[in-house]
């Protein structure tokens, strides 16, 4: 049955617009943080911010697509209820959502860190020429420098991710308030 195409009865346009908005907010904030903390030039930091955020949401979507068919009917109705009607059948789900949001935060942080690490390595190493290590001392210095860079990278990613999540949560709160007023 799912192999057949039919005329669209619904379209997730709102989800697409919201995600684009959140991505734009996150990209501009994280680009600024990368520029300030890691001293990348503006263009490079925006590039890293775009790649990090968009790829991590692609990753998140894929996890959703993997998990969705495996949910049992109870959890699935909660999910459907949330997506179609913006409510939950079971009031206990609210606390699960908060826990889930925390997990998602940690998950995106890890993914973003891995992504930026991979991007920095692939984008700089391939084009750049191999430096020949002359002395043991120089090698040691280089490793130390790499470790220092790693901790700085982790803290920067964490800070950038926290600030962008705060901004997005703020937008969500405003939206819920405006729905409540209606």
């Amino acid at each position, binding site marked *: *049955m*799912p*192999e*057949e*195409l*039919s*005329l*669209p*009865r*619904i*379209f*997730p*346009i*709102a*989800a*697409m617009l*919201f*995600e684009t908005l959140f991505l734009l907010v996150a990209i501009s904030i994280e680009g600024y943080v990368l520029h300030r903390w890691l001293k990348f030039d503006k263009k490079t930091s925006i*590039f890293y911010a*775009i*790649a990090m955020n*968009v*790829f991590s*949401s*692609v990753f998140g*979507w*894929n996890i*959703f*697509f993997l998990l*969705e068919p495996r949910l049992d*009917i109870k959890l699935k*109705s*909660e999910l*459907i*209820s949330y*997506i*179609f*009607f*913006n*409510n939950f*059948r079971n009031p206990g789900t609210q606390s699960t959502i908060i826990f889930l949001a925390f997990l998602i935060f940690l998950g995106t942080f890890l993914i973003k860190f891995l992504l930026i690490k991979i*991007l920095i390595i692939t*984008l700089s190493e*391939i*084009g750049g020429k191999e430096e020949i290590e002359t002395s043991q001392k120089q090698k040691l210095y280089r490793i130390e420098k790499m470790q220092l860079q790693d901790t700085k990278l982790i803290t920067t990613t964490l800070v950038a991710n926290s600030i962008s999540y705060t901004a997005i949560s703020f937008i969500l709160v405003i*939206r819920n308030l405006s*729905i409540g007023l209606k």
Partner: protein
Amino acid sequence: MNSSFFKEVILLFKFIQDLLLGIQELIMPPKAFSWQVLIYLSVFSWGISYLAIGFIKDIIAFSGWLFLIAGTAWYTTDDPLRVPGTFMPVGALITGLLVSVFAFGHEVNVVTPKTIVFWPTIAAIITAIPEFFAGTGTTSKAAIPKLEVRQKVIILLAWSMLISCWLQFYFVLDKWLKEYPSLSAQNFLRSTFVIRLEPKSKTPQNGNIILNKMQPLVEEQIFGKPWSEVEKWLIEANQELGNLGKGVIFKNLEKYDEKGLWGIEPRVVNVKSGYRLDILTIWTGPSANTRGFYLQKSCLIQPVAAVNKQENQNAVAEIECDHTNKFFIGSPPPKQ
């Protein structure tokens, strides 16, 4: 006057000639190795594949696809018209669609959801491929592009993959509507995710189906039975109707996932001439109203004198059910 008429005719001829020349230019390959040749090869393979049988047919059809993809790719990279806002040529979109149809299509349905989902990603990859070859024409060789180009390619790929995810999300939602058709009887106005493209149906169709299939079964259990037996049945209506309901739901809603979300409950009310049996089908799944909804069919059960029996005390039951089912939004009335 005559001369101007001739002029017009000559102009018209000239126009037709230009048109034909243009078509000829498009159709006739300028060299032996050009995109037109590839397209012709694909058409040729298609024709041949009809004559062949077995796996040879598949092989020929397969190469036909490859020729078509290569030909369009070649033609569309000749003069790139780009998708606004990106550096992706429109040609890459066309080639991407062909590759996607080729990869995920069946003989029965040419375009499957997978084809559409993977289309943007494949188009982005096709756009990126030429960037990894330096030089033009025959003297090209693989090379890693400049940093700026690499960044451009990565960003294009990222956004295209995100669009693929959105399309997949649409197909997930569509699948839900197929597996849980009763969802479409409700409004999605509060949703943060979706908008509706078709008007909502008035009542959940599956609820009506359950009630209409229940009616003859219940009538059979009651009609013509001795009144005392019927009263006993009504006391145990919860159990009796529950068993009947399970069978009906399992039989009629077998192909839907929503079959686990419907429940059947009776409500028995005393009326002056006998009893009223309300059969409720209650939706326990997701709904716009947090208290859900239910459908109801009312049946009036009365004792009548048995016709062919001598003693009048053995009254039998008669049952009459409403034709239409009522649709209520909110929680059902409390159980007795």
